[in-house]
């Protein structure tokens, strides 16, 4: 067992799993898929020792619905999966969102479309942020970029899920899941959130509670969705998170999330050393997206260069945010190889050249 506060070498998936245990995750339901298997394997050993429930489900469809059941009781619970298997969970995700119940979904992206392969990818930005399930709902999404942040944002994911009774995604990728680097595990920093006014625990001495999504009148259904979006407005007001680097005086502003943001940082530093006015804007909450914040940041920039390990997904939200304050260019490549800092540096040079 790792002592709290000790800096140790940790694999991303293990760091995340340890953080989930510290966050009080009582139930885990999942089905094997690379590149996130270490999460389930680790929890299958540790959770029974702690009197908690680890269950390997028969499918991702079953796993997300087991999560729904545990979430309906207010229990801290999660699943983890990847890409094509997250696709299988989308119906359950829509139900959990509609039900106003707290659940954490860890998505360690691999390369698609379809089976693709186990290479890192950011090809599931749309799948996560725009949702693949039916109807009007949102999934609060946090995108870590280091092993340390796998811990930090796993904690935050559990906190926000229970604070807002909503589904929260931690959107990582195969690189973050598989890499090892020093990180500090610390105690779960958030307070417990009381759920006694809504969770199902047997209707003893009170009227029965119903958690469900069916509403048989137009009015009831509309009110339900409007209430859901009132909650989403609160999340937008309170939970937008982003990071900037050398952004103030930059002529070229890079936008990137997750592991690509981390690679871009190295390229930005090198460009600064070479005298180029380059900065970085990294959305950490992908939904809610830092639309207003990016709009402000983009003012006066000559170009916003969006870089992603896909064929252009977040760039759509970047364009909406920038809203004409600057031109927006996209540099990406589909999953297979991840970017090197050199590759991004070369693109920075090329883009700066184009500004002359």
């Amino acid at each position, binding site marked *: 067992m790792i002592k709290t506060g000790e800096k140790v070498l940790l694999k991303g998936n293990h760091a995340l799993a340890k953080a989930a245990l510290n966050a009080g995750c*009582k*139930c885990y*339901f999942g089905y094997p898929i690379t590149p996130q298997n270490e999460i389930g394997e680790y929890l299958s050993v540790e959770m029974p020792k702690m009197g908690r*429930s680890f*269950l390997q*489900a*028969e*499918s991702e*469809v*079953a*796993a997300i*619905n*087991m*999560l*729904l*059941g*545990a*979430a*309906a*009781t207010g*229990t801290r*619970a999660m699943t983890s999966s990847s890409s094509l298997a997250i696709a299988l969970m989308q*119906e*359950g995700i829509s*139900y959990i969102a509609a*039900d106003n119940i707290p659940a954490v979904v860890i998505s360690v992206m691999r390369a698609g479309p379809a089976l693709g392969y186990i290479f890192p990818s950011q090809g599931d930005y749309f799948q996560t942020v725009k949702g693949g399930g039916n109807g009007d709902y949102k999934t609060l999404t946090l995108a870590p970029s280091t092993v340390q942040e796998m811990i930090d944002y796993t904690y935050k994911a559990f906190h926000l899920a229970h604070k807002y009774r909503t589904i929260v995604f931690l959107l990582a990728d195969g690189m973050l899941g598989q890499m090892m680097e020093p990180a500090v595990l610390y105690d779960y920093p958030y307070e417990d959130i009381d759920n006694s006014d809504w969770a*199902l*625990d*047997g*209707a*003893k*001495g009170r*009227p*029965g*509670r*119903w*958690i*469900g*999504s*069916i509403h048989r009148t137009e009015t009831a259904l509309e009110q339900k969705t409007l209430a859901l979006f009132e909650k989403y407005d609160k999340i937008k007001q309170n939970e937008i998170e982003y990071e900037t680097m050398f952004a103030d005086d930059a002529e070229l502003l890079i936008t990137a999330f997750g592991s690509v943001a981390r690679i871009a940082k190295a390229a930005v530093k090198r460009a600064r050393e070479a005298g180029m006015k380059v900065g970085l804007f990294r959305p950490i909450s992908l939904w809610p997206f830092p639309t207003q914040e990016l709009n402000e940041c983009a003012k006066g920039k000559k170009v916003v260069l969006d870089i992603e390990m896909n064929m252009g997904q977040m760039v759509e939200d970047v364009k909406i945010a920038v809203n004409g304050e600057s031109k927006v260019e996209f540099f990406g490549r589909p999953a297979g190889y991840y970017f090197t800092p050199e590759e991004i540096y070369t693109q920075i040079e090329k883009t700066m050249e184009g500004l002359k």
Partner: protein
Amino acid sequence: METLVFQKPSRIKKDCKVTFCPGCDHGVAIRIIAELLDELGIADKTIVVSSIGCSVFLNDYYDLDIVEAPHGRALAVATGVKRAKPDKFVFTYQGDGDFASIGLGESMHALSRGEKVTAICINNTNYGMTGGQMAPTTILGQKTTTTINGRDAEVQGYPIKICEMAAVCDGAAFVARCSLDSSKEIENTKKMIKRAFESQINGLGASVVEILSICPTNWRLSPQESHERVRRELYPVYPLGIYKDKANK
């Protein structure tokens, strides 16, 4: 002196309006379950999993904690509830399409794991809510809106036999098929559900009660004719009885 001879079970909502079709067996099943929750004294710790189909409206009738499962996933949701709250009493209320078609995987795996939950499966041999289409349990020759010439084994294959399949799962503790076609069978169904509930309470494993039920609207028969059809056509294909009982081995 007045003697109370009949009253609603405590967890049937006082003001509930029954919206099932006239003659439907759902109301009977819902009532006898509520009676048993009172008799066994477990209503206070019960969490119900409703499903998709006519069974989705449980919250209109029950004053209980209820969670709605997506179509076919009732036993996965029940698994999540029970794993999170092992001290609660958990049952699903599903149709045959939910249990044995779209949800067959979840059903068989929950039974094989021996999840300490009970599944009540209302088998009316068609999809009632959507207008009477072919179900996994539609018998050969039965006309439905998607088998207008009758189910043909060459084309649609054979009906799925829920209890026979459930009984081979090692984790299943109690498996029984019953019917609601007469007061005698209603009494027997109540006994079967009670034994299923008791097997969960005693921690023996998963339990299933398949209840042959009528769908007069989609069968295009009167309730009386429908119950006659259960005896005449369904009994031979779906024999009543206990298929597995770990408590009395």
